[in-house]
């Protein structure tokens, strides 16, 4: 069967994450929430530690902790400290606490690198089901709320005037973000999840005239990066997660260059 090939499973896992991360990544970029994504993703390490400590599935542990982190950030935003300072504190504290928590896990054999940088080649059929299930859920959520999310992103006041509640939309985004983190940790790892959100979206920007086109292009770029990174790691024997992000970064560089040339011509 097709799914018996670990490469096919890896490719499908990468595509699933790319697809879910694309529209969400665009929203993260538009709303200047890049560090928010980072903080949520870094919290995943703590999630892994707790999941293993309490005997839960990694998906559940990561989802719960990422959600808690995202809600904390949402609740704290706009109080006292500047947003980037607070996210810096939370993002790095989360990963530090996570690493310390992992060190308490005696008797559990844990390949920390796999959670920090992903282990896409080890994706099993069950993992694949979780990844595609989560990705589908994220897509449904984002597509369903798309118009409202976009209006609230453009201007909370415009949203209020239209009878929408920007806070509710922010909550939708928060939940979707936690879901993406939970499904992506196996693929690119906690440290690089934010890259899968932001890099394809940023690379799509110079060639998109509407939000939808940017999201679709980000999905395509994310998909190409996933497949290209997989290929690259096979040829050069490099770690797969970082290879995927390298390809995405290269596409971003080319796209920025092309955008700059187009502006000057």
């Amino acid at each position, binding site marked *: 069967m097709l799914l018996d090939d670990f490469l096919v499973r890896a490719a499908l896992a990468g595509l699933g994450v790319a697809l879910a991360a694309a529209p969400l990544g665009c929203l993260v970029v*538009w709303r200047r929430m890049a560090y928010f994504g980072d903080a949520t993703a870094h919290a995943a390490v703590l999630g892994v530690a707790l999941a293993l400590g309490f005997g839960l599935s990694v998906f559940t542990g990561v989802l719960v902790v990422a959600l808690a982190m995202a809600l904390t950030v949402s609740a704290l935003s706009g109080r006292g400290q500047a947003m980037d300072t607070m996210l810096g504190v939370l993002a790095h504290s989360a990963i530090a606490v996570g690493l310390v928590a992992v060190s308490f896990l005696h008797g559990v054999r844990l390949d920390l690198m796999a959670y920090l940088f992903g282990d896409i080649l080890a994706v099993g059929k069950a993992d694949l089901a979780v990844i595609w299930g989560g990705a589908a859920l994220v897509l449904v959520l984002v597509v369903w709320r798309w*118009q409202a999310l*976009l209006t609230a992103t*453009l201007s909370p006041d*415009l949203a209020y*005037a239209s009878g929408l509640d920007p806070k509710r939309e922010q909550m939708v985004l928060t939940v979707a973000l936690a879901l993406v983190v939970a499904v992506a940790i196996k693929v690119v790892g906690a440290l690089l999840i934010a890259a899968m959100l932001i890099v394809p979206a*940023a690379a799509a*920007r110079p060639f998109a*005239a509407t939000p939808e086109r940017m999201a679709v292009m980000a999905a395509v770029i994310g998909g190409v990066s996933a497949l290209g990174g997989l290929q690259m790691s096979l040829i050069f024997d490099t770690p797969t997660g970082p290879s995927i992000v390298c390809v995405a970064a290269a596409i971003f560089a080319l796209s920025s260059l092309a955008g700059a040339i187009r502006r000057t011509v």
Partner: protein
Amino acid sequence: MSLVSLKGVSIRMGGHLALSKVDFAIDRGEIVTVVGPNGSGKSTLMRTIIGAIRPTEGTVTPARGLRIGYVPQRLHIEPPLPMNVRRFLSLPRRVSDREAQAALEQVEATGLDNRPMAGLSGGQFQRVLLARALLTRPDLLILDEATQGLDQQGSAAFYRLIEQLRQELGCAVLMVSHELHVVMAASDRVICLNGHVCCEGAPEHVASAPQYRALFGTGTGGALALYRHEHNHSHDAHCDHGHGPAPDPDHDHDHREAS
């Protein structure tokens, strides 16, 4: 039945009382202008009416199913967000190309469909904001200093457009403005705001009210005279209590008789 009514609304923001015991209502088809110096709570009042700010005290009661078309004071579109005019018009309700075209015609801004919002001139941008507000088929159109950044001719044209739209669409218009000489003529009612409602009434009443003069000086009197054709009515603008010192009265006696 008013479209929206505020009763005893007070709003405290960060320890500062932005609005104090404001009563306000607007009826179907009415044009109401809110004037007041900077920091007098004009935008706060608008944002309370659209539901963006909850009153600390008092109640805001919108009519059932009230549709508001809101034209904000400013709209900054982040550079990472690609947004052309056509797409912008479809927020939050998706509209057909025909509807979008009709709305752009109404505000005299045709042919902009594929232009990025960020590349529009100030006047075009305001017209597109207005077109989007109209596409929500509003019962109440709210304009918060919608002519900021337009020159005098541009804002005069903009206000003529709004008056004309009110006649075509029959929606109520609530606007905030500094440009009294242009705005007041078109208004059924003017509300002078300075943290509380200083005075309100027909434009002529308010313009001659001492509370209004205390806030704005008499410098705009000359320009207002343009619209004061009859002086034989009684000046019974109902005004309330006293006021602090006038913030920087406008002593520029430039009478813009010709416009």
